[in-house]
C-alpha cells in the first residue's frame, strides 16, 4: 500500500498542469482515486464534513445488486446449451460453458466502454465518471448469449458516444446507455438478435428432436396468431426435450432461453431488494412498472378479442425482460423522471407501454426496451408538469 502510494505521489506531478503527461491527467485521476480515496478536505466555508458516500460506492452497490442476475445468467447459458443439445451435464459443466460464453462479453463491454470513456475524458477534459461501471455490466446482461463479440464492441461504442458523450457525458444523457446499445443491435443487425439466438449453440451443434429456441414472448405471439390458448401453448412447449420449461413457476425462476441476465424474475427481485435496502434504486419506479404492466394486462383481459389479450395479467410480469428492465433499467437515476411524483407516473407508463407493445405490435416481440426508451424521452416532460405544479403552488400564495 505504502509503496503504491509513494509511487503515485512520485509520478503525480507529471500529470498535473504543466507536467509531461498533463493530457492524461483525468486518466491518472481515475486510476489514483480507484486505488485511494482522495486526501481532499472540505472547503473553508460551507460544510466541514462530508458524507461517507461517493459515486464509486453508489455504482458499486448497483453492480452488487446485479450479481445474482449475472451468476444465474452464467449458469443458465450453460443449462440452455445442454438442454438444446440434449447432453447430460453437471452443474460445473453448465457454469463452465456459461462462463466461457458470458465472461468474454463482459470483458469486451468493460474494455471497450471504459476505453471510450478514458479517451473522451482526455479530449473533453472532464473526470472519468463511474456511471460506466454499471452500464458496462448492464450491456452484457441484455445481450443474447450467441452474440458475436465484435457486435458487442460496436454497440458499446455507439451507445457511449452517441448515447452519452454527444450529450455531454455522464449525467446528461437522455436515454439509457445500455438500452441504446441493445436498441442499436436490434435495428442494425435484426437477424442476429431475433429468432433462434436465445440459447448458446455453436456452429454445427446438433439440437435435440423437437427443439425450438422460441422465447415465451414468441410462443405467446404465435399462439395468438393461431388462435390457441396462450397458457396452454406455453405449458405444452418443450414437450419431449424440456418439459414444463415455460410453466409459470419456471418462467418466474428463469431457467429458459433469453438474454444472458434477464430471464430470471426471481434474481431480478433479489436485485430489487438490494436496491431498495441500500436506497440506491427508486422502489417507486420498480413497483410502478410492475403495477403498470399488471394493470394493462388486466385491462386487456377485460377487452380481450384474441388469445394474447386473454393471457392472464401476471404472466406479463414474468415473461420477457420486464422484471430486469423495471429493476435495473427504468431506475437509472439519470434518465428516469427526477421528481418523486414523476417517478410513479414514469414507471407506470413504462409497464403499460411494455404490455401494449407486446400484445399489439407483432414487429416487436419485446416491449420493455422500447417502452423504457420512449419514457426516457418523456421523463423530462413528466418532470415539467410536476415542477410546474410546485411553481404554481408558490405563485398562488403570492400577492403580487
Amino acid at each position: 500500500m505504502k509503496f503504491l502510494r509513494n509511487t503515485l505521489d512520485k509520478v503525480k506531478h507529471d500529470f498535473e498542469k504543466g507536467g509531461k503527461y498533463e493530457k492524461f491527467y483525468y486518466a491518472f485521476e481515475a486510476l489514483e482515486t480507484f486505488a485511494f480515496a482522495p486526501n481532499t478536505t472540505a472547503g473553508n466555508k460551507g460544510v466541514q464534513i462530508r458524507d461517507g458516500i461517493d459515486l464509486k460506492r453508489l455504482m458499486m452497490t448497483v453492480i452488487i445488486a446485479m450479481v445474482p442476475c449475472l451468476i444465474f445468467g452464467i449458469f443458465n447459458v450453460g443449462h440452455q446449451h445442454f438442454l438444446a443439445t440434449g447432453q447430460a451435464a453437471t452443474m460445473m459443466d453448465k457454469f463452465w460453458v456459461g462462463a466461457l460464453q458470458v465472461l468474454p462479453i463482459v470483458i469486451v463491454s468493460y474494455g471497450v466502454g471504459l476505453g471510450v470513456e478514458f479517451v473522451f475524458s482526455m479530449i473533453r477534459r472532464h473526470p472519468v465518471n463511474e456511471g460506466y461501471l454499471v452500464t458496462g455490466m448492464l450491456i452484457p446482461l441484455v445481450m443474447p448469449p450467441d452474440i458475436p463479440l465484435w457486435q458487442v464492441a460496436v454497440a458499446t461504442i455507439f451507445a457511449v458516444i452517441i448515447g452519452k458523450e454527444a450529450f455531454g457525458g455522464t449525467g446528461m444523457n437522455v436515454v439509457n446507455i445500455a438500452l441504446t446499445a441493445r436498441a442499436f443491435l436490434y435495428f442494425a443487425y435484426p437477424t442476429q438478435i431475433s429468432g433462434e439466438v436465445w440459447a448458446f449453440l455453436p456452429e454445427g451443434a446438433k439440437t435435440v428432436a423437437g427443439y425450438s429456441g422460441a422465447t415465451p414472448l414468441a410462443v405467446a405471439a404465435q399462439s395468438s396468431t393461431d388462435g390457441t390458448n396462450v397458457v396452454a401453448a406455453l405449458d405444452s412447449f418443450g414437450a419431449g426435450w424440456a418439459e414444463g420449461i415455460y410453466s409459470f413457476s419456471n418462467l418466474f425462476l428463469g431457467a429458459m432461453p433469453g438474454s444472458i441476465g434477464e430471464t430470471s424474475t426471481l434474481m431480478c427481485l433479489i436485485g430489487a431488494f438490494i436496491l431498495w435496502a441500500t436506497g440506491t434504486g427508486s422502489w417507486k419506479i420498480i413497483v410502478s412498472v410492475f403495477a403498470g404492466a399488471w394493470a394493462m394486462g388486466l385491462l386487456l383481459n377485460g377487452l380481450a378479442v384474441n388469445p394474447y389479450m386473454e393471457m392472464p395479467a401476471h404472466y406479463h410480469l414474468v415473461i420477457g425482460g420486464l422484471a430486469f428492465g423495471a429493476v435495473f433499467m427504468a431506475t437509472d437515476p439519470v434518465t428516469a423522471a427526477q421528481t418523486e411524483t414523476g417517478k410513479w407516473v414514469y414507471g407506470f407508463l413504462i409497464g403499460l407501454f411494455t404490455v401494449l407493445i407486446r400484445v399489439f405490435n407483432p414487429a416487436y416481440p419485446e416491449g420493455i426496451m422500447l417502452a423504457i426508451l420512449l419514457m426516457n424521452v418523456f421523463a423530462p416532460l413528466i418532470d415539467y408538469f410536476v415542477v410546474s405544479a410546485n411553481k404554481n403552488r408558490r405563485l398562488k400564495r403570492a400577492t403580487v
Partner: protein
Amino acid sequence: MGKFIRLKKGFDINLAGKAALKISNTEQAETFVIKPDDFHGIYMPKVLVKEGDAVKAGSPLFHDKKNEKIVFTAPVSGEVVEVKRGEKRKLLEIKILADKTVESLSFNKYSVSDLANLGREQTIQQLLSSGAWINLVQRPYGIVADPAETPKSIFISAFDSHPLAPDYSFIYKGQEQFFQAGVDVLKKLTTGPVHVNVHSEREISPVFAQVKNAELNKFSGPHPSGCVGVQIHHLDPINKADVVWTINPAGVIQMGKLFLNGILDTTKVIAVAGSEVSEPQYYKTYAGASVKKFLANNVKSEHVRVISGNVLTGTAVGKEGHLGFYDQMITVIPEGDHHEFLGWITPSASKVSFHRAWGLFSFLNRSKEAVVDSNTHGEPRAFVQTGVFEQVVPMDVLPTHLLKAIIAEDYDDMEALGIYEVIEEDLALCEFVDVSKHNVQSIVREGIDLLANA
C-alpha cells in the same frame, strides 16, 4: 396561539464531543474582531476608526457606503489594533484589543412601561446607532435588514438543530426579562407577528415558554427543523416582494439589554465542542472573540480544523482565528487530508452517512457518537440525481431543480422554484449528503447574489 408543525425529512448527525453543561472560568479572550464578510448585502464598508483609537462597546467602526445608517460597532471596549485589508484594499477585519473590564457607550435607557410607549422611529434609531441592528437578517437573501423596510413578520428560532449545537435552554438561562424586552422591541418593527419557534421534544426554556407579545410555535423532527428558513416556509412563506426578518435569541437579548440598561452588551455564551476538544464545555465571551484562549491546552491533537460555527455551515478559521458575528459555537474536528486505500469500497461502520449503500453501516447504529474528519470521502463528479436531496429538505422546494436553475442562471426559474425562501444553511444538508461532492451552499449564495444584484 402558535402552531405545531411536524417535520419528517432531514438528518441528525450525531458527533462526538458534546459540550458539558457548565461554563468554564478560563480568562477572557484578548482580541475581538468584526469581519464584513460575516454579513451579506454590504456594498462597501467605510472604515470610521484608525489603528490606535480607543473605542467603547457600541462605538462605530465602519458603515456601509450604500446605507450609512447601518453602523457596525465595536463589540467590546479597548484599542483598535489592526485594520486588516486584503487585495484591492478590501476590508477584511477590524481587530480590537479588549480592556479588562468592558465599558459601553451609554444609550437611552427605558423602563418596561416606557418601552411600551416608545415609537417605531426612535426604536430603530437606537438599534442602528448602537449597532444592535445588525443582528436582524432580512429574507429573501439573508442580508443585514434594511431599516427602510417593514417586514410582514419576524422569526426567532429558539433551538439549534445543527450537530453539537449549543443548548439554548442552558445558554440563555435567566435572560427572561431581556428576551421579553427584545421581543417587545421587535414587535414595533413589524406589522405582523413575532414568531418564537421551539422544538417539541426538547426542554423548553422558560425564557421562551413564557414569552408574551409573540406566537410560540412548536416544531418536531430532525435537522434542519431548527433552521429559521424552514420554519418560515411552514408558518408564513416568503413570496415574491415579501420581506421577513430573522434574528437569533442572542440578538433579541442584546436588544433587550440595550433598551432596559442603556448599554450595548454583546456578551454571549458559546459552546466549544467537537471530538478534538479535551474538555468540551461552554464559555462566556463577547461577539467576535479570538478562539485562542478557549483552545489553549484544550485540544487533543495538533492536526485539527477549528471551525467558527457548526460543521455544516461554519467557517474554518484556524487556531488563531476569531468567532464569526452570528456564531455561537466553536467546533474542533480532525483534519482529514489523508488518502484511504480502496476507500471507495471498504466497508465501514464509522463513516457517517445518510446513505445505506454497500459498506456504509453507520445507519445500523445512529445513536453512536461519531468522530468525523474534514475529508471529502470522494471526488467531484457530475450531478447524478439520486433523489437524496429531496429527503433532507423538509420544504415544498425542489432542491435539485432549484440548483440547476441557479447554475443555468435562469432568473425566472430560480424565482419560481423558491430561491427567496432559502439561504445557504437551509440546504446545507444537501451539500453534506451529495454523492457528487458539489458545493451546494456556494451555489445557493451565487444564485441569491445574482437575484439580489439584478
